[in-house]
């Protein structure tokens, strides 16, 4: 036998043939594809027992009852609570809460900034350090130089902060204002009490909205959407008056474009027609015995707000105005909505009063389909904090923002005045700033001014759960639990009644975070003396239980406790004259009617930039989840470029085509943008979404687009002092 090359060849051939008859190649082929079906780098969700836990969403002021779906001890989804009562509902933001809970931009432990770098510290160390600094201030009689910016004014946590400032000795507790503050002023002035209006849209047969973003995030979006759907089911009308074809305008039965900022003029013009044609008479309402200042008001609108003049100012056709008035007054239960967009910018007091006069003339207060007035009864009945001399001295100092004083006599807090106050003095009048539940450095207009002001403050303590813009400027961060990890009372509205909901921890805190309520109590205890005495609770949970008392059992069962007594009943109950007052001394003091104009020279800035709010972009303290940003259209954000909407005719004037890059300049700043041609916007107006251009947070959000607040300045409402800017003059240059 000779072994040659051929033998090896045949060995190989045999081996090949043999392999074909062995499982090896076939099993390998099968297993390699099964391997691709189970790639180790693709996560496999761990299975477990599913459970559902109800809680109240506190990501926006809406306070919806939601259900969290859990698998064992992890949160997998937020869902609408399966019931019609108890304010159940969910929106895109609430649906995002699981992503926000596990977000990479969560702050995982208390942090301290040392030489510009974040260093982990313990809760104990953080509390001790803050207390030490606070003690020093007190020693120097500077307790009033502690300020606190709170995102909300309602509920126990803001109340604890406010109480802390008082006990410590500072008057400078400032809340982030919203349209709700102006709503209260509207009714303070005309009914003598700061009622909060609830618009009974679902039962109305004719809704006129003066730029209110009914379907763009206003109020409680979930409830607003539900109400709108009922309107559609009942085939009732919605009219939207707005410069831009917003989502609300698109859903409306009629969209009436109007020059922005002139909505109040239109409302007064409409009031004039109603009075002139005596259409209010058949409305069986407030007149004669129940109104005051009506004759004076009548004369005022007759003089300045003829339909012709109004048409000229607003750009709305005369016949459209008269037709609108007719339809409005013909309706059984008409209602006029006020407050622009989603209501994060408080807005013009006079404009809202003007619109509310339509409600008065239609006599719809507390009627089905009209405006329901809720009193802001507090369920928090704590004993007053104990004040020592230092505290007493401190709280009697003037508020830094000037609220409640002089020309700002109406407002309680004026956050928008803070940057100016800080910038106008050499050294910061604030030595320490608490920032809780808010991101003022991002949400306040005129970012440049705000940065300058904030940089002056020697010590900032942030209580944010996220590495947002303000937190990154802080010196110490005591991160709050996310709402799915904590107890908290949430002030809400159930149906047409005031209510309080209870957020309950759905999971144990996943990071080393601390409830802001606990943080305040611990800091107070660390300070000792009367301050510690004022905070006798062991912790926040004890405080909450004590505050809610028996209500808690109801909340545990039904999430919400409804305040049946908090409804405005009859005009006779009103605290002052018991009448609806068109004009009175206080109103006269506000110099009616002045509406806010956009800042900037028309010549230099021929265009007007307005902001628009979108459900898909959260613009407040809570920022977008990755899923939400994913839903944002490519005509809003492309890569990192933001788009500015412009009418094609205006675009042609500026030699701009769809998608072209341009430099947007306003009196407040410059930004490179791209343009999106949109037929749904008035000529000469351009618009940009709020809520983008974050520098904080994670890579799913940071760096995308421009923060519109960098381009828009605040404009003090001459009547209230709140920010009433609805836009700014601007110019676009192709680049």
């Amino acid at each position: 036998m000779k072994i040659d090359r051929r033998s090896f060849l045949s060995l190989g051939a045999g081996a090949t043939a043999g392999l074909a008859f062995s499982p090896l190649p076939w099993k390998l082929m099968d297993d390699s594809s099964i391997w691709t079906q189970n790639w180790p780098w693709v996560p496999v969700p761990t299975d477990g027992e599913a459970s559902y836990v109800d809680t109240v969403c506190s990501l926006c002021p809406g306070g919806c009852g939601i259900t969290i779906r859990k698998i064992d001890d992890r949160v997998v989804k937020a869902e609408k609570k399966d019931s019609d009562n108890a304010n159940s509902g969910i929106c895109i933001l609430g649906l995002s809460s699981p992503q926000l809970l596990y977000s990479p931009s969560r702050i995982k432990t208390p942090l301290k900034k040392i030489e510009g770098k974040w260093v982990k510290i313990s809760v104990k160390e953080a509390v001790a350090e803050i207390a030490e600094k606070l003690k020093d201030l007190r020693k120097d009689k500077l307790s009033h130089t502690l300020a606190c910016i709170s995102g909300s004014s309602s509920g126990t946590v803001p109340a604890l902060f406010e109480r802390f400032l008082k006990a410590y000795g500072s008057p400078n507790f400032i809340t982030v204002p919203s349209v709700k503050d102006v709503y209260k002023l509207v009714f303070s002035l005309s009914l003598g009490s700061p009622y909060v209006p609830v618009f009974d849209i679902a039962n109305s047969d004719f809704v006129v909205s003066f730029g209110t973003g009914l379907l763009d995030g206003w109020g409680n979006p979930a409830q607003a959407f539900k109400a709108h759907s009922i309107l559609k089911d009942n085939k009732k009308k919605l009219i939207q008056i707005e410069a831009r074809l917003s989502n609300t305008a698109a859903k409306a039965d009629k969209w009436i474009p109007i020059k922005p900022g002139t909505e109040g003029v239109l409302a007064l013009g409409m009031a004039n027609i109603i009075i002139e044609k005596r259409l209010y008479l058949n409305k069986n309402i407030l007149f004669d015995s129940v109104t005051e200042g009506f004759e004076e008001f009548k004369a005022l609108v007759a003089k300045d707000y003829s339909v012709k003049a109004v048409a000229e100012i607003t750009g709305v056709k005369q016949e459209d105005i008269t037709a609108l008035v007719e339809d409005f007054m013909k309706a059984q239960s008409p209602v006029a909505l006020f407050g622009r967009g989603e209501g994060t910018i408080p807005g013009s007091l006079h404009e809202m009063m003007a619109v509310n006069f339509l409600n008065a003339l239609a006599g719809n207060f507390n009627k089905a389909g009209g405006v329901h007035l809720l009193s802001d009864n507090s369920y928090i009945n704590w004993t007053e904090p104990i004040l020592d001399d230092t505290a007493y001295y401190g709280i009697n100092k003037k508020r830094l923002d000037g609220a409640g004083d002089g020309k700002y006599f109406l407002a309680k807090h004026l956050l928008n005045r803070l940057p100016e106050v800080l910038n106008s003095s050499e050294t910061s009048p604030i030595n320490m700033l608490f920032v809780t539940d808010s991101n003022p450095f991002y949400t306040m207009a005129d970012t440049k001014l705000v940065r300058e002001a904030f940089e002056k403050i020697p010590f900032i303590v942030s209580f944010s759960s996220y590495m947002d813009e303000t937190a990154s400027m802080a010196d110490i961060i005591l991160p709050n639990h996310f709402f799915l990890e904590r107890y908290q009372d949430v002030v809400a509205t159930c149906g047409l009644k005031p209510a309080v909901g209870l957020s309950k921890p759905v999971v144990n805190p996943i990071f080393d975070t601390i409830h802001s309520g606990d943080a305040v109590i611990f800091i107070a205890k660390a300070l000792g003396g009367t301050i510690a005495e004022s905070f006798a609770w062991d912790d926040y949970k004890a405080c909450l239980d004590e505050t809610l008392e028996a209500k808690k059992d109801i909340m545990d069962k039904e999430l919400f406790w409804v305040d049946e007594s908090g409804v405005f009943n009859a005009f006779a109950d009103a605290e002052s004259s018991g009448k609806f007052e068109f004009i009175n001394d206080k109103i006269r003091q506000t110099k009616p009617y002045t509406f806010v104009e956009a800042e900037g020279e028309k010549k230099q800035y021929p265009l007007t930039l307005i902001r628009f709010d979108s459900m898909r972009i959260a613009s407040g303290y809570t920022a977008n989840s990755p899923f939400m940003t994913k839903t944002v259209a490519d005509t809003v954000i492309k890569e990192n470029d933001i788009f500015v909407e412009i009418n094609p005719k205006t675009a042609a004037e500026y030699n701009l085509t769809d998608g072209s890059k341009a430099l947007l300049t306003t009196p407040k700043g410059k930004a490179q943008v791209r343009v999106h041609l949109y037929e749904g916007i008035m000529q000469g107006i351009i618009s940009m979404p709020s809520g983008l251009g974050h520098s904080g947070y994670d890579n799913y959000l940071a760096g995308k687009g421009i923060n519109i607040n960098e381009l828009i300045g605040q404009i003090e409402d001459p009547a209230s002092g709140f920010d009433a800017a609805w836009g700014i003059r601007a110019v676009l240059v192709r680049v």
Partner: protein
Amino acid sequence: MSETQKVSASDNKKKDAGGTTILFFLIGVAISLALGWIIFPKLLYSKKSQPIDFSHVVHSEAVGDCDSCHFFREDGTFSGAPTLAECIDCHEEAQGDTEDERIFVEEYVAQNKEVPWLIYSEQPDSVFFSHAAHVKKAKMSCESCHGEIGTSDALPIYEENRITGYSRNIWGKNIAGIKKHTWDRMKMNDCGECHEEEIGDKGSCFQCHK
């Protein structure tokens, strides 16, 4: 003459060479068959022991049927392997004095740590298997798929496919895929086979996939 000689010589050579060729061919075949049928399966599967041993017999005598520990949740889903929560009622304290019992109580129960059981019948993530449909609706016995594990006194070695990460019970112990019992294999075709017999069709994809 010389021509013929030449031819026959070459023929002889050919024959001889042919024999060698066939022999080598057969050797090749044999090597491959041995490799494929014997060595390959040994290499393909890694053997793993369970963290602790467990006797189904002892437990079923003590607590009853399978569903005492492998139960349906209220929502109709199947709980699978029991968690500590189920064991703790009896095993707060050591039951008996075996080494495994000691480990279980000391390292798991006392430390509240779940036992990382290796699941023989673990299907991949893409599979939706409804225990409710089979046990509750079709009233099938556990044995029809899980075999005699319920009457075993010790846990068998867990074999894991090194490429796919599957338990060997899915493909079956027999490398050729031959099965004698319904529980010998748990591949999709085995599901299909039974469904075809019992229901008349294999069902749609989504019936068993997610």
